[in-house]
């Protein structure tokens, strides 16, 4: 039963993240805002933190990243969608590795200083890590190939671009802890209908949006 709940949790959190990337991310790009850093610093870190402190299960965020990345593939608009999908999957894995490496699941007391520090650290490392991974993997999957000098000369820009994500993480992670502490609970009989319904809505909306854009 726990495993089914866990898998349903992966699907719903991943679908929400993918939906945000495809719809809100596209809107942010259209108005020339730094969509990558905002999406990671707010939506990715927010959803992954909430899922982690709720389920306390290593591996969950890797799964969430895979679901969200897969949904991004269904929306081939707004920037480099291959890069976005790869970055999303890498961000899920990196978040998982950071929480597991620092054994954060065992920690029970989270002061505001620790929450803010965690926000800066995870948002920055996840964003910068995802950026580097996509800069390596996207050329590898293309006919141009990967050249290490291309990434070395761009490292200062990548390190600088993570600053906004880190600053957004300052607010996002404490907000997720506050949400968890609010003890909002869903009745068991509603859990599956709600998770399936929300996930289905996200996927149908993104696919219909893609078809609509292609048709126009």
């Amino acid at each position, binding site marked *: 039963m726990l495993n089914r709940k866990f898998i349903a949790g992966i699907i719903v959190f991943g679908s929400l993240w993918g939906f945000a990337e495809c719809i809100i991310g596209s809107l942010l790009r259209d108005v020339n805002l730094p969509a990558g850093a905002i999406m990671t610093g707010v939506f990715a870190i927010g959803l992954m933190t909430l899922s982690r402190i709720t389920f306390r299960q290593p591996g969950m965020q890797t799964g969430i990243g895979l679901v969200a990345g897969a949904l991004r593939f269904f929306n081939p608009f707004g*920037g*480099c*969608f*291959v*890069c976005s999908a790869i970055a999303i999957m890498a961000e899920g894995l990196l978040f998982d590795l950071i929480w597991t490496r*620092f*054994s*954060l699941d065992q*920690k029970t007391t989270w*002061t505001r*200083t*620790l929450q*803010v*520090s*965690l926000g*800066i*650290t995870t948002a*920055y*490392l996840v964003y910068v890590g995802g950026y580097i991974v*996509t*800069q390596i993997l*996207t*050329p590898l*999957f*293309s*006919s*141009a*190939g990967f*050249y290490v*000098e*291309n990434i070395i*000369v*761009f490292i*200062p*820009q990548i*390190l*600088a671009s*993570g*600053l906004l994500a*880190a600053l957004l993480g300052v607010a996002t992670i404490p907000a997720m802890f506050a949400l968890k502490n609010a003890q909002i609970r869903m009745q068991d009989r509603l859990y599956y209908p709600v998770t399936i319904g929300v996930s289905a809505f996200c996927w149908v909306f993104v696919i219909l949006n893609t078809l609509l854009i292609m048709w126009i």
Partner: protein
Amino acid sequence: MGKDRLLPLLALSILFIASSSSLYVYATQTTTDAMLINGQHYTINQLFALAKHRVSNDSQYTGIALDDLMVKTGISHPEQYQYSLKGADGYEKTVTWQNMKNGLLTMNRESVFSDLPKAFRVKDIVSIEVK
């Protein structure tokens, strides 16, 4: 060192690295109207007068053909080389001759390749290095 001390220290280090990098990027940003191709400086108007025009496969972009541009700027046996396109912000991508044959340079000095992902769209190109 416990996590209670390690995490704030790590966060401060990250803020320092990100802020220093931002200052470095701002200080080293290039602003030029000229484009350096194979050791020679050109304006975008000169390049547009030099090479033949090309439209992207999806008809969304127009510009000059990158392969023809390389030939017209004096590169012999262009198929033997690779080409590094560098933007004013330091973003750089290296492509093959085959990619150049499917690429164009827009009036806004942006590269568009019909056979490569959007990650290869280098904006505000300041140089094309022949390697």
